[in-house]
């Protein structure tokens, strides 16, 4: 099975909530919509206090080219446009809506069945995606429409769908593929249509073979192929699909490729290398090697936006942890307080030491639970006290494990020391800007050194220095 070549680690995947059907979280009393749910300029509110809004109505427009609008996920009255305290204690602007129900805007078919017809042009699709406020749901929240318009001098030939879900504990992408395979594939088709390309690869890690088989089966069904061919030859589904799909030159070709389990396979550059063997140049974007990477959740959101006119108002989340009563997958309206989501999973266990937003490797610990779900939310991981306690930090023994495991080929022990001593110029020379903050170095360090903390801070400082130099 394929995987990327450089570094990487093998944490236990702990998929406690795997194959648990999605549960829908009930509407809250007050929904809070932060204006900064994406990378780029914050959205600008276009509603006033006292306005009545419907579910799916745009309440804040994009604040620039790299920005995304915000839509209400509920129907109700705008209570106030004021600050709220985000998950890390900082004040951020948001629109607060008193919830009255879930009445959708007229042209949204919120719960209709699969629609496979799509005759829109590339520009029309991109416009629909931009208007629906879709951002990359893999965690970075980069506005999707920007990624679909690669620079003119780069020709893109492959769409890569990231369904790797390499973070331990998280399972909502897996569950999405199990429950909505046809919708996901339709979303992939639409993305290919938007990019005007004929090739897509869906990368899935080997701990989700049922999703691989299901998507491949779905592809056969779509092509109208007879299932008996498979059974007659008595070969596995995997092999025959590859045979069937490669002769097809006229229709867009979608491949589902299982990948060997290795973290951080979901990293953009790692995934491109694993699936195509191409290496993104130093400091370059995926389009430089002809690839565009989108998360599988984004593909589904694109399907909903283009086919059902439904903007991004719901996110899928995993709520999990070793001592959580009912770990599971949830569909949550944006703006719902995370307390409500935690309630659905059986509340916060008494021994909880940390509540992490996202997975254990790249997630960030919340300092309180009184804040809303946003486009950024992908999971809630509740770690018990013994797992959350910090380990005793010791001196670096120069074992080189971090260098061996760094998927970007950096020297984390050196960067961390430079960061500790504030040697920003040296860090820049050591290519700290290439760090993807995956945390492999900290995970693997036998001396429990907080390598990533120093490197991340150094990277922020170096990037600020580079920007300051550029603007001079």
């Amino acid at each position: 099975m394929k995987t990327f070549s450089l570094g990487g680690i093998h944490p236990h995947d702990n998929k406690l909530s795997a194959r648990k059907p999605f549960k829908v979280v009930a509407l809250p009393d007050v929904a809070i919509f932060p204006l900064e749910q994406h990378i780029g300029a914050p959205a600008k509110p276009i509603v006033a206090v006292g306005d009545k809004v419907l579910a799916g109505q745009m309440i804040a427009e994009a604040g620039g080219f790299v920005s995304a609008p915000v839509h209400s996920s509920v129907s109700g009255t705008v209570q106030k446009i004021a600050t709220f305290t985000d998950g890390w204690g900082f004040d951020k602007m948001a629109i607060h809506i008193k919830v009255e129900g879930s009445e959708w805007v007229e042209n949204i078919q919120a719960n209709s069945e699969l629609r496979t017809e799509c005759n829109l042009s590339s520009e029309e699709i991109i416009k629909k995606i931009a208007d629906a406020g879709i951002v990359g749901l893999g965690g970075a929240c980069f506005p999707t429409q920007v990624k679909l318009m690669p620079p003119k001098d780069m020709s893109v030939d492959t769409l890569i769908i990231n369904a790797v879900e390499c973070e331990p504990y998280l399972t909502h992408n897996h569950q999405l593929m199990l429950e909505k395979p046809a919708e996901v594939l339709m979303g992939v088709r639409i993305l290919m249509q938007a990019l005007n390309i004929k090739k897509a690869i869906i990368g899935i890690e080997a701990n989700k073979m049922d999703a691989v088989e299901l998507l491949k089966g779905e592809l056969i069904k779509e092509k109208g192929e007879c299932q008996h061919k498979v059974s007659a030859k008595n070969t596995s589904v995997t092999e025959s699909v590859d045979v069937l799909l490669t002769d097809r030159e006229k229709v867009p070709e979608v491949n589902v490729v299982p990948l060997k389990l290795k973290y951080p396979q979901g990293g953009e550059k790692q995934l491109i290398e694993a699936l195509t063997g191409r290496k993104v140049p130093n400091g370059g974007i995926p389009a430089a090697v002809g690839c565009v990477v989108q998360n599988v959740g984004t593909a589904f959101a694109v399907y909903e936006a283009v086919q059902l006119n439904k903007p991004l108002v719901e996110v899928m989340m995993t709520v999990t942890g070793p001592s959580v009563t009912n770990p599971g997958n949830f569909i949550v309206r944006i703006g719902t307080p995370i307390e409500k989501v935690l309630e659905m999973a059986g509340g916060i266990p008494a021994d909880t030491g940390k509540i992490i937003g996202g997975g254990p490797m790249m997630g960030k610990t919340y300092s309180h639970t009184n804040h809303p779900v946003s486009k950024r939310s992908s999971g809630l991981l509740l770690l018990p006290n013994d797992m959350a306690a910090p380990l005793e930090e010791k001196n670096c023994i120069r074992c080189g494990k971090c260098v061996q495991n760094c998927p970007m080929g950096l020297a984390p022990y050196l960067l961390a020391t430079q960061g500790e001593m504030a040697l920003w110029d040296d860090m820049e020379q050591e290519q700290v800007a290439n760090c993807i903050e995956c945390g492999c170095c900290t995970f693997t360090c036998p001396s429990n050194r907080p390598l990533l903390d120093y490197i991340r801070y150094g990277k922020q400082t170096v990037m600020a220095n580079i920007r300051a130099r550029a603007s001079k």
Partner: protein
Amino acid sequence: MNIIVTSLVVLGSIAIIAAVILFLVARKFAVYEDPLIDQVAEVLPGANCGGCGYAGCRAFAENCVKTGKLERDYCPVGGTDVMKRVAALLGVEAQASEPKVAVLLCNGSSACRPKLTTYTGVKKCSIAHTTYAGETGCKFGCIGFGDCQVACAFDALHIDPTTGLPVIDEDKCTACGACTKACPKLLLQLRKKGPKGRKVYVACKSQDKGAIAKKACANACIGCSKCVKECPFEAITVTNNVAYIDDTKCRLCRKCVAVCPTGAIHAVNFPVKKDENV
């Protein structure tokens, strides 16, 4: 005997030739450096703290001599005395500046500001600040890991283990401003030292509304404006729920200190009043 004479002649002539070459080369490639630079650098404290905005004392001296002016340059460490001597060397008027000192604009000691969470990452304010707002309910307050203490080159700043806040030694503080740059919450500021070190200032930067600020910290400025009404010199203004005392207008009467309900206004270096002494 012969050997001695020969070697003397040979070595002597080499020495003379070399001396002539060196003399000519030194003449040809001589770099003129104003002797004033050395003299000015001599007068400066030589701490290379960067408080003046230059890379070090020598860079400061070079710039002074080059421009021949002292309008923008001031050595906060040396103060007016040193600047007078520099001015005398340059033959210009000395720039008089009020001596300054760093003050801490937070009085949320660990006793009055309960911890709600525990930070387990790297114990550095700069890194903790990028992670989240802080261990207590106040997002404006001191983090207490002592980035300022590390930044201080004059040993004038120490974290008090009981309060968790930095304490400034005003005798050692040279107002170089290194700590003001090190604090990610911008809680250290350079203020006028005041006559005999006396000054009145609001030791809080919480922009939260009164109730929230008070809940997070018993010593927070709640923006109640009592001090504004009390001040006879109109030196106090309240913006964003936090009071600010303009030290150009303040006459150190300390009436505001008495009315502040939370004790957020600090008066330092005043003699103890007799009736309080009992």
